[in-house]
């Protein structure tokens, strides 16, 4: 028997499930989502759970603030048992260098113009917000109260369950072997359990999108880059905001469960699918965090892990259609911040797929920008 669908989604990370949910909410027809393992098993499950609207590019600010709104409404909208563990303690962005301050001030002006109520605060205000923080050499900081934390596993399962209730078929442990195309249009996908024919295929396979597309002659400049993180034992609530610094190259946030999740940049991070944990990361992180939050010295590290950042050359996602092949869509390459943007990216791509004009202009995020050299680099990331 020939199996057909209206839309096939390849990959069940935060991007795939958000897309599935927004499509089925718009009654886009018969939707099948294929995931090679379980939902959230890729980068989403390795994510540090941070969500922020303090960005340096207009498009990221717009996607992020609208996504924050959606996170705020998610418990009501998706009705997931136990909720998504949203915590809005804000993001505190610490600045130690003059040029960093210049960039952050520019960011705040931009953010305020887009309705994001971020502000610049003094080291004194920082100390009263986080009394445990060592503010030595700190010049200034920026703060936005609605930033914070949401549990990526729960968000993915919440979108997954809501999608299924609205009619989406989710097939776990079903890898897509290849996308089938008829020169200029997409025909469907081949899995190890058979072929599914569909006029629309959306690829949300994270770093594996590159291989799926190169098989059909489409090159996307998306690659994996290992980033590591660790988590401590749970403590009483002590630190409200996510603490992040681009010059110190680190982030650290206390989760609603009480543990602290943290990560830092690595100048020698390998490219590819390597997600192993290293002692170097543990040592570097230890040095940085015990200096910044001295009470940490007595806190236990419980677990270390690694994951892949989904990098593009300008650290900005690819969302849209693929012009060479009709019916083929992409939402990937989120470069280490795809979780926090996923509620909105899913909605926007669903609008594009069903022929509506996306409510935020995402034409600048298309794949062609890499061919014509119109990169849109995001300045404010932890690397």
């Amino acid at each position: 028997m020939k199996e057909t669908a209206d839309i096939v989604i390849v990959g069940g990370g935060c991007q795939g499930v958000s897309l599935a949910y927004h499509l089925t909410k718009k009654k886009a027809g018969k939707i099948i989502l294929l995931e090679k393992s379980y939902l959230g098993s890729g980068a989403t499950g390795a994510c540090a759970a941070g969500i922020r609207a303090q960005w340096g590019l207009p498009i990221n600010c717009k996607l992020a603030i609208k996504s924050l709104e959606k996170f705020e409404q998610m418990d009501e909208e998706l009705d997931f048992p136990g909720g998504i563990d949203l915590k809005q303690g804000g993001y505190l962005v610490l600045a130690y260098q003059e040029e960093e301050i210049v960039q952050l001030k520019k960011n705040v002006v931009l953010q305020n113009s887009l309705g994001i109520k971020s502000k610049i605060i003094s080291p004194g205000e920082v100390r009263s917000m986080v009394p445990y923080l060592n503010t030595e050499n700190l010049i200034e900081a920026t703060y936005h109260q609605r930033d914070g934390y949401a549990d990526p596993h729960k968000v993915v399962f919440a979108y997954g369950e809501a999608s299924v209730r609205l009619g989406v078929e989710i097939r776990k442990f079903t890898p897509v072997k290849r996308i089938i195309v008829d020169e200029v249009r997409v025909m469907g996908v081949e899995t190890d359990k058979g072929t599914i024919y569909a006029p629309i295929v959306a690829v949300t396979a994270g770093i594996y999108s590159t291989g799926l597309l190169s098989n059909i002659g489409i090159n996307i400049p998306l690659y994996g880059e290992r980033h590591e993180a660790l988590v401590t034992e749970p403590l009483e609530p002590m630190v409200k905001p996510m603490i992040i610094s681009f010059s110190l190259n680190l982030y650290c946030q206390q989760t609603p469960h009480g543990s602290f999740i943290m990560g830092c940049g690595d100048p020698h991070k390998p490219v590819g699918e390597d997600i192993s944990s290293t002692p170097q990361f543990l040592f570097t992180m230890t040095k940085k965090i015990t200096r910044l939050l001295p009470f940490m010295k007595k806190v236990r590290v419980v677990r270390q892990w690694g994951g892949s950042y989904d990098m593009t050359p300008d650290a900005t996602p690819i969302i849209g259609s693929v012009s060479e092949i009709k019916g083929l869509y992409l939402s990937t390459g989120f470069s280490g911040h795809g979780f926090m943007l996923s509620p909105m990216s899913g909605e926007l791509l669903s609008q594009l797929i069903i022929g509506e004009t996306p409510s935020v202009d995402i034409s600048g995020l298309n794949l062609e920008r890499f061919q014509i050299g119109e990169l849109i680099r995001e300045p404010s990331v932890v690397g």
Partner: protein
Amino acid sequence: MSDDDVIICRCEDLTLKELRELLKRGYTSFDEIKRLSRAGMGPCQGKTCKQLILNEIKNYTHLEIDKIPIRPTVVRPPARPIIFKEILESENERNR
């Protein structure tokens, strides 16, 4: 003893009843259960609960344990919880 009283994960307080509810909702792999219930994420890192959970999955799905999907083991150090100060000191020691 009722299912309510049977603790499957001692670190994170998962009861047998809660585990069975997750199975019923379709979460039938160890990794999904871990990510939803935190079982296996506490101080013992799954050393006590993992087999118990796999057994329950087996009873529920009637799959043999080696057929239950499980992510290939990734090493997630440290082997047991360790305080940052000890890590700092061991690093200073190494550099001496």
